[in-house]
């Protein structure tokens, strides 16, 4: 897969030959590149087929993957770890708060040291937006960087696994109606999803949330991408095929910015009554971790329209695909 020069100049995730060498953002990623990752991931789903005794393939044998999590995450870190293990790579988890950065070493000094330890792939999560882009600009050509979530900027592998899940259950993006409910403002997941869905030809995306989480400048940006804004779930969810609920990210908010727990649930929580306004075969998604009875009712989260656990399973295949594509470019 080779991408033309025009796109290369606007992002640093493609190398001079037009091949994907880092995964940093889904913004501006060409449709054929997204589809290539999804199709590659489909092959990796079979690695965990029930009758395959050895659920592991040797593609990344001898490669070292470093998980650099400057922000806590159990699920994402674990799925990257499992993905690297299933590809037979060596995975090293760095516990950043207790490591050298807390002794005063600069971020790039830490990176240089890890490169000197023969790292092949860095999986980076950082609370500062665009930190993985800086790291990608810093490392030598043969080292690859995967953004595992940066501030409120992007979470590309989550976006990819979400569109993979939608394609698995719904096939045709051009006919898809997708509602995203909740904390759009702080959600890198929502942003990655909107970019990927738009590129894949979905032309009915709705963002639903209180005004405090969809402020006018964000609403303007989203509108320019063709996203429709709603402040009432009942209005936005009508006839949709996909309902994605997002976690309220208290850690990124000022106090009083949104209605708390029970009040948010009353106004924006996805319950059975609201879900009934969507299409009868609509799927329910959540990137996790879920706050039950805040953004989603347990009956919906555990109901037969929920594909939340499928998202987790597909997430491993997507991360295997991304790592093996980057390592080969």
């Amino acid at each position, binding site marked *: 897969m080779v991408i033309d020069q025009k796109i290369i100049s606007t992002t640093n995730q493609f190398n001079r030959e037009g091949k994907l060498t880092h995964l940093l953002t889904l913004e501006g990623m060409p449709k054929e590149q997204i589809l290539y990752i999804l*199709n*590659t991931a*489909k*092959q990796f789903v*079979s*690695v965990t087929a029930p*009758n*395959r*005794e*050895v659920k*592991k*393939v*040797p*593609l990344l044998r001898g490669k070292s993957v470093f998980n650099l999590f400057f922000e806590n995450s159990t699920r994402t870190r674990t799925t990257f770890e499992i993905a690297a293990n299933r590809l037979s790579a060596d995975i090293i988890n760095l516990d950043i708060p207790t490591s050298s950065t807390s002794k005063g070493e600069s971020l790039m000094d830490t990176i240089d040291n890890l490169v000197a330890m023969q790292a092949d792939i860095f999986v980076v999560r950082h609370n500062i937006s665009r930190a993985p882009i800086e790291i990608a600009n810093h490392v030598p050509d043969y080292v690859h960087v995967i953004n595992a979530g940066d501030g409120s900027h992007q979470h590309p592998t989550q976006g990819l696994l979400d569109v993979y899940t939608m394609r698995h259950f719904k096939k045709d993006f051009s006919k898809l109606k997708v509602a995203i409910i909740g904390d759009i403002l702080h959600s890198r997941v929502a942003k990655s999803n909107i970019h990927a869905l738009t590129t894949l030809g979905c032309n009915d995306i709705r963002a639903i949330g209180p005004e405090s989480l969809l402020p006018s400048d964000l609403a303007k940006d989203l509108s320019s991408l063709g996203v429709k804004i709603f402040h009432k779930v009942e209005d936005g969810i009508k006839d949709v095929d996909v309902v994605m609920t997002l976690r309220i990210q208290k850690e990124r908010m000022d106090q009083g910015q949104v209605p708390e727990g029970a009040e948010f649930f009353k106004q924006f929580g996805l319950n059975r009554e609201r879900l009934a306004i969507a299409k009868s075969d609509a799927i329910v998604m959540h990137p996790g971790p879920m706050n039950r009875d805040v953004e989603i009712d347990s009956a919906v989260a555990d109901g037969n329209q929920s594909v939340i656990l499928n998202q987790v399973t597909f997430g491993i295949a997507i991360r295997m695909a991304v790592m*093996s*594509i980057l390592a*080969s*470019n």
Partner: protein
Amino acid sequence: MNAEAFYQDLLKYLKDGLFQKASHQPTPVYLVGLAIGGAWLAERLAHDLSLTQYGVINVSFHRDDYAEKGIRAIETANTMPTKLPFDVTHAHIVLLDDVLLTGRTVRAALNELFDFGRPAKVSLMVLADRGERELPISADFAGCIVTLPESQILVLERNQTNQFNFVIEERN
């Protein structure tokens, strides 16, 4: 080059030889074709031998040229993934492929097969053996021996009535 005669020889070898003998043994025999040409062979043989099932092996995950060819090496897995609808452990697996050359594909196929269990026995049968082995692997049955320059590849084609034909193409 018409490959029908080679196919008929292989069919006869299996029908009158291997399956005849196997009918007196407790070990089950399963045909497993290597994607994509070998899988065509397995499909037609299963039909002609009235077998209820056959398997397919895709060697993509175990290829040894990943570093060289990168992810393109696994692209065929998308069109024809590994499918083994029976327990390979304690079974006699007959691997089928259209052409045997370096032996590297067969090495990868053995790795893929053993990821699913431990067969009692594995045999290899091909329509054409080109020699030029790079690994210590040989076929238990070869429909023909063909000598070709390294720059050329032997490609199996099948028509709408499932008849086989070999064509010679230049390597890119």
